[in-house]
């Protein structure tokens, strides 16, 4: 069976847990930017945690199916309907053969996740179905007309699930490997200020505007391996939080590293919204 895509909004990609372990070949890890939301969507339709889902940016996805299937939408809040009849957010819904599922414009957050029972079964690339938007390793982006195969159902839908815990507050950070390249107060500045999410933010990084982080070393740093959540600081002093599609290596010093469990928040922050950091 398969889904057919009628509309795909600003950006829709197939995502799963990503393909870690290939950074030494220059391949980003990719994977869902809001892993707890993707995991919840999979649980709701009875999928394994590694099943592939669709990551929809700011809503606007419309799909039809050629066979009945359970679906669930999580992550950024958006109106969900089946053939015009509203369906709940974060609960399983039955999509009958020939029916049309629509995700309206997201009212808050950025990325919604659509899971289908059996998972999106496009051919894996290097062990994963995730699309990396830096080097475009993985399946191509989802466009109107794309036909997406759906895998065999492995379990029943789960009608109830624990909602995600409330926002813990700021993004918790650990000191980075190049903290000595910065003025002694740089970490205090990072953790004592509100930064604003820049409009160039994407799956590669959350670009932030705010008090510049002052460097004391201005020589060139030879490129070095980067981790998920690294807070890299280019010469303009404005931090970038590295997300799933970050380049595997980078040449700007890393002041701090965001706790991995907090990174899902970066997937849902809109340009202009504020973000705060706290010491882990």
């Amino acid at each position, binding site marked *: 069976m398969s889904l057919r895509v009628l509309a795909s909004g600003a950006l829709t990609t197939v995502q799963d847990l990503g393909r870690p372990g290939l950074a030494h070949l220059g391949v980003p890890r990719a994977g869902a930017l809001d892993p707890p939301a993707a995991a919840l969507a999979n649980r709701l339709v009875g999928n394994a945690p590694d099943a592939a889902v669709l990551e929809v940016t700011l809503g606007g996805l419309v799909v039809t199916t050629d066979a009945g299937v359970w679906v669930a939408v999580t992550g950024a809040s958006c109106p969900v309907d089946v053939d015009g009849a509203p369906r709940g957010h974060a609960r399983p819904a039955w999509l009958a053969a020939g029916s049309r599922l629509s995700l309206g414009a997201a009212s808050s957050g950025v990325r919604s996740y659509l899971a289908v029972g059996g998972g999106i079964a496009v051919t894996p690339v290097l062990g994963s179905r995730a699309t990396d938007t830096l080097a475009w390793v993985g399946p191509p982006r989802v466009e109107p007309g794309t036909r997406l195969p759906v895998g065999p159902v492995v379990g029943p839908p789960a009608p109830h699930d624990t909602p995600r815990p409330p926002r813990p507050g700021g993004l918790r950070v*650990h000191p980075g490997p190049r903290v000595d390249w910065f003025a002694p107060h740089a970490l205090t500045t990072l953790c004592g200020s509100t930064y604003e999410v820049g409009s160039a933010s994407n799956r590669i990084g959350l670009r932030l505007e705010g008090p510049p982080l002052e460097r004391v070393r201005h020589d060139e740093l030879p490129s070095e391996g980067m981790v998920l959540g690294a807070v890299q600081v280019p010469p303009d002093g404005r931090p970038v939080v590295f997300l799933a599609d970050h380049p595997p290596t980078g040449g700007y010093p890393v002041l701090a590293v965001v706790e991995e469990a907090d990174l899902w928040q970066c997937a849902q922050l809109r340009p202009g919204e504020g973000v705060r950091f706290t010491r882990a």
Partner: protein
Amino acid sequence: MGGTDATGQTGPVHLRPFGPHALLAEVADASEALALATWARTVGIAAADVVPAARTVLLDGLTHEAADDVRARLAHWSPTTAATEAGPGHVVEVPVVYDGADLAFVADQWGTDVEGVVARHTGTAFTSAFCGFAPGFAYLTGLPEELAVPRLDTPRAAVPTGAVALAGPWCGVYPTASPGGWRLLGRTDAVLWDADRDRPALLAPGTRVRFVRA
């Protein structure tokens, strides 16, 4: 590069914590980085990613216990013992048509002519030290520092797939067409990157590389 890390450990490798799950090992140069990365894979360090670079190796996805293990083992590590344990990498021959736009510039920089550049390039035993910039883009060592060439001041908007190029002391081959500021020597039909292959990157770190005239 000697050093003392946060635990007071001394040795040829300086370890910097890179968040709660990673260590950044600082070494003297790219060949030591490659040796350390090869060693880490050979002895089975429990890292999800081992990423060599110009002067560092990132060991990412470490548990607390694995990080302790790395600290203990690296106290006695040296590039020479590592090379003995790992052995040499396999050799790849890359056929090149030497018709690059910057051949004359490189000849001038090296104080020779175009034939001299080709002879030097085909006569050099290169090693892939690390990948970066794009999937399968390998930084190849082998040229001496005195043959380093400057990058273009303004990168070209489009460098074709298979372009063989130099920047600083590095040689590289573009796996896909992209903008680029490296000095072009020629081009190859060799497929540098193919995600469907067993070895997706032709020039994975540790691979030995010989360029031959096509």
